[in-house]
């Protein structure tokens, strides 16, 4: 699919509500261990928009020195297919882990286990110091919060506002269920986390960020379901407000990349909407019909926003394609 061109009449000036388009095109995230001998190959072959590196602290050696020695190469390996790279850190050992894992090439960290805004402030301060010490642009490293505690849910707004580095809420449903005393099996005819998801999506969006998650019940079963089931689940997740998901199976990634964005058919329709509406405006009309539907200003604005979203997703795909085509990639 190629990038859809904005039709004439759209002057490129900022649209009302433009910030409503997703801040990041981060539809699919894949977690990989830096100990995985196949790290580079898996990251490359996955086509994930982002890779989360898990760095195990080996008790049999000086784990900080060990990680410091290995992280730069791991970041490079994970990024080879054009993915953004994050490192996952635990709240209780956050500062020590940051010292051992923050190097150029990372987009940010995934903070797990946070229970309140102080945890984010602590990480943010350390990142500022490390950016200076390691030649990384000041303020560039992002803090994404993996929600797995009741405290992170209750204090989500304070957490999201705790640092301008905040980017994304990721929902670790299995652990969150366990910490809420919920049965992490989809035996109910409704999603027991429905309102928590609604809250996190709304809060993240309110500060200009976004939330990542999957729809029920696949969000809890995390099964390697058939293609149709994954595609439908992704569509439901997008309709809920999620902008991507962490993929427990590499097989999900293709569907997340295709589903967490307006489709090519949608994009083509938006182009038509924008063109027909612009023609109507020239003729002095306030609304024009397309296929029996009336197109007016809000529909036109939405079409422009969604087209922009679709184009940005396409640009991201093109970026990854270039990374894959690099000599020696």
């Amino acid at each position, binding site marked *: 699919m190629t990038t859809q061109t904005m039709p004439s009449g759209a002057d490129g000036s900022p649209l009302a509500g433009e910030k409503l388009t997703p801040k990041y095109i981060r539809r699919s995230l894949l977690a990989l261990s830096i100990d995985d001998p196949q790290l580079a190959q898996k990251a490359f072959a996955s086509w994930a928009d982002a890779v989360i590196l898990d760095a195990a602290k080996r008790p049999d050696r000086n784990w900080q020195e060990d990680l410091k020695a290995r992280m730069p190469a791991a970041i490079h390996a994970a990024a080879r297919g054009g993915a953004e790279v994050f490192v996952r850190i635990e709240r209780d050992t956050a500062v020590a882990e940051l010292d051992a894992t923050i190097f150029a090439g990372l987009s940010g960290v995934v903070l797990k286990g946070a229970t309140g805004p102080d945890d984010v402030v602590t990480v943010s301060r350390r990142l500022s110091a490390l950016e200076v010490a390691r030649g990384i642009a000041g303020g560039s490293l992002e803090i994404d919060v993996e929600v797995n*505690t009741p405290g992170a*849910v*209750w204090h989500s707004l304070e957490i999201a506002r705790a640092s301008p580095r905040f980017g994304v809420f990721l929902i670790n449903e299995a652990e969150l269920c366990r910490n809420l005393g919920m049965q992490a099996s989809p035996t109910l005819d409704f999603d*027991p986390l*429905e309102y*928590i998801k609604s809250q996190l999506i709304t809060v993240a969006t309110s500060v200009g960020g976004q939330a990542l998650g999957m729809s029920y019940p696949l969000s809890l079963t995390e099964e390697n379901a058939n293609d149709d089931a994954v595609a439908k689940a992704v569509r439901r997740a997008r309709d809920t407000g999620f902008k991507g998901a962490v993929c427990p199976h590499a097989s999900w990634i293709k569907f997340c990349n295709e589903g967490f964005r307006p489709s090519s058919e949608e994009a083509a329709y938006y182009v038509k909407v924008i063109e027909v509406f612009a023609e109507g405006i020239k003729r002095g009309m306030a609304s024009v019909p397309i296929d029996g539907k009336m197109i007016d200003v809000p529909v036109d604005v939405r079409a422009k926003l969604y087209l922009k979203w679709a184009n940005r997703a396409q640009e991201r795909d093109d970026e990854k394609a270039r990374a894959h085509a690099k000599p020696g990639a």
Partner: protein
Amino acid sequence: MNPRRSWMIVPAHDPDAVARCQEHKPDVVVLDLEYSVPPKSKEAARAGLADAVKKLGEAQVDAFVRVERDTRWADVRAAMHRGLKGIVFPGPDAPEEVSDLGNHIAAMEKERGLDPGIVELVLMLESAKGFWNAAAIAQASPRVTALGVGRIDLTMQLGPLPQDEFRLYRFLMTRTLVAARMLGQQPLGALWRPGSRGGEATKAGTAKAAREARLMGFTGCVCATAEQVAPVNEGFAPA
């Protein structure tokens, strides 16, 4: 300690009901000074608490007293006797109400020669304000051990007809659950459905309400009638 699954409401003015309540094997007996007691019987209910609490305490039963929000000071005074496990406070709206009541309980513990801090406080949220402030309210006294979703008053305040689907209920249950789990308190509530709610809930409806609540993370609920105790115990039993 096993979670207290069934919190059986027993009208405190009814000596027969109090005498027989243990037959139903509730995990907790809640001697009620609120809705199940007619206003004209309120004094008699208060007067009977000393004896009822003492007997239940001697029988190793977890005995609580549910006070009425507007008369809670006098109700707590009447309830504070050796053997009392705790006070159920329905409808707290603000943290100060809980800390003030906690201080009142502390004063009564001293006056009655009870161990300091021994009497627990259980909060049943029943107002929009209460739900929104749930965490602050539940943290307002170290005595708070459980946080619950209230029933009748809640539907009255938020508007839906109690006989219909109360569509806000799962949202309110989620908010209660998150606050309670964050604070290490017991979450109380059941997913009551239309036609099987309150005193009208059938055994099957009660068991389903409890089972679904358990799947959602709750570990116990209030039983409006004696018949609800067995299905609640069953519904909240681990799978």
